[in-house]
């Protein structure tokens, strides 16, 4: 007989956001510890990540499962804000597409793959200003910041964020990775980023290298 926790776990695996929300809500009513439910959600996405790695599931499956996980985690967020330190995680990541750029497909896939690999990911969205990146680092203290740019003309925004991190004394508090079609290893080095990856799978590997526990 399935418990609520089993159902939460399965809803993520099945990529069903409605069921994920439903069972998390039910779990709250049953007084299940929010952190335990978050763990079920995370374990669900990791199963999906494993199967994806084996070629049994595909990107759209990952996206649906990540959406389900986010739906459940969104409900739990206010309750676990103060208990962040108790959450088992590979690391915390803030990721976004830089200012002047609204492309997000690649960034979304990286965010999902990072979640599946055990990272806590905060997606800042698109057209993210330098100020927003800095605030995210200051307030939430992630281990890693990821910046995506699809347009060559948005690449200077990545440089501006690096400079702002230096200017505000936050640079050594966080690792920084950059990516996106026009971005290269050379560009990443020239702006002082800690890492670069040409696709989502390699981005996860690099993230582990830089901050994995």
């Amino acid at each position, binding site marked *: 007989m399935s418990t609520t926790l089993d159902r939460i776990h399965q809803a993520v695996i099945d990529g069903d956001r409605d069921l994920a929300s439903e069972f998390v809500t039910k779990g709250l009513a049953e007084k299940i510890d929010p952190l335990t439910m978050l763990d079920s959600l995370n374990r669900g996405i990791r199963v999906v990540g494993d199967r994806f790695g084996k*070629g049994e599931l*595909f*990107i*759209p499956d990952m996206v649906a499962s990540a959406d389900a996980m986010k739906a459940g985690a969104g409900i739990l967020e206010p309750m676990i804000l103060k208990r962040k330190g108790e959450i088992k995680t590979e690391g915390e990541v803030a990721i976004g597409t830089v*200012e*002047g750029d*609204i*492309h997000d*497909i*690649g960034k979304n*896939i990286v965010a999902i793959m990072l979640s599946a690999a055990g990272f806590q990911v905060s997606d800042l969205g698109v057209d993210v200003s*330098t100020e927003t990146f800095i605030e995210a680092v200051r307030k939430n203290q992630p281990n890693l910041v990821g910046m995506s740019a699809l*347009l*060559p*003309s948005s*690449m*200077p*925004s990545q*440089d*501006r964020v690096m400079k702002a991190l230096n200017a505000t004394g936050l640079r050594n508090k966080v690792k920084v990775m950059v990516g996106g*079609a*026009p971005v*290269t290893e*050379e*560009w990443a080095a020239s702006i002082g980023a800690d890492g670069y990856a040409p*696709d*989502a*799978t390699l981005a996860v590997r690099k993230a582990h290298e830089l901050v994995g526990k």
Partner: protein
Amino acid sequence: MVASVGTRDENVYKVLNDDEVVRIHNAALQVMDRVGIVVQHEATLKALEGVGVEVDWAKKLARFPPYVVKEFVRKAPPHFVQGGRTTKQDFTVENGRVYARSLSGCSHVLDLESGKCRVATKKDSADGARMIDALENLKFAGGWIYPGDEPPSTRDVCLAQIMLENTEKHIAIQAYEDSHLKYMIEMAKLVAGGEEELKRRPLLSIVLAPTSPLVLSKVMVEQIVSCGKYRLPGLVCSTPICGAAAPVTLAGELVVVHSENLAGTVISQVLYPGTPVVYGVRANTMDMTTGNALWGSVEFGISCAAAVQMGHYCGLPVDTYGVGSDSKALDEQAAVEKVFMMMLPAMAGVNLLTGAGYIETIRTASFEQIVIDNEMLGMMYRTLRGIRVEDETLAVDLISRVGPGASFLGEKHTRKHMLNEHYMPRVFDRNVRARWEELGSKDAAQNARVQAKRILREHVVPELDKDVRKRLTSILDEARKELPKESGGE
């Protein structure tokens, strides 16, 4: 043999039957009317509102009633001239003709000496322009290789100068933003000999990219305006990743592509009626195992061929990719993917076939590969020319004169027609093995390398006037001063 560029009247490859073309067209009209297109440019939204488009100002969403679409798409010219540096390079974009060019946008290049993949430099951009200038099956040029040693803010303007100096052919190019395009237009005016001459024989055509699905950004719409002002052909380049920025079904992707193209066309005709527009499609697909975009899949070719039908249905000339591959090497995968991607739209009657010169998903340019692509295009042209059936070619009189058991080799008829009827390759080897070994047992890539080096050594593009060159440089210098400031300072 000079490759001919004609097609026959009957386009051979019809992916869609007539009903299906209409269904997709109607589906797109429905999307444009009920879902709407985001147009991130207030002045344009106002103009659209003025002609009957319903605007939701809060969302910057434009809903186009079908009658508005019909009224304005009709105004786009079905054929127009694209100019080169001299009238010798001019050509007319029109149905019944297929013209090919390189792609725009490689950031990397396969080094001709080492074979290694590296970031491209200004020298590569210039060499690339010269190669395009030399290759006979490329009627015009794209901004093939981006100079990676120029800071990102001015890479596009820098490339425009390099292209204008190193090829006489018409150049299709992309600007990051309208402020960048303005510098390119200044350069083009200079080389064309003034604004009036540039308008008469546009030296540049401009790639305008929607943000799929269904968003025409400020960056794009401002450039539609500039194109209209100078009557530069605008290539509305719908590039949705199938499965991500468009439905995963090819028919659904065509609906998105068709909607974006018609929206871009309507806007250009509302603002500047009669401005040349090209219906552009890059039907890239997503690799569902990695999330990477693919620029060599067979579906890309099929969708582009169907898009040709869709654009022609609306009376618009069509530009699609062909000659593409996701391979990292100059190998069988490169050859096979390119043939599918090239032949499908070509046989569907595409007007402008873009994409020569890349491997690896448009990231990497290869000088050897563009020589091979040129060869493939030659074979494509030969295919499109088909078979000439006339008294002269049926040759019944000749056959009866020569008679059973005899030879045609020495006949005047053979000498007269042999080069026209039979394509002679420049790169592909046809020798017997012993002779091939004597020549070094070279494969196609190696032969192409020899040719590429020879072209780069020997091909000379007439230099622009010294004064023009100086002024082009000062335009670039000004761009280098002003543009970084605009994006927030460097």
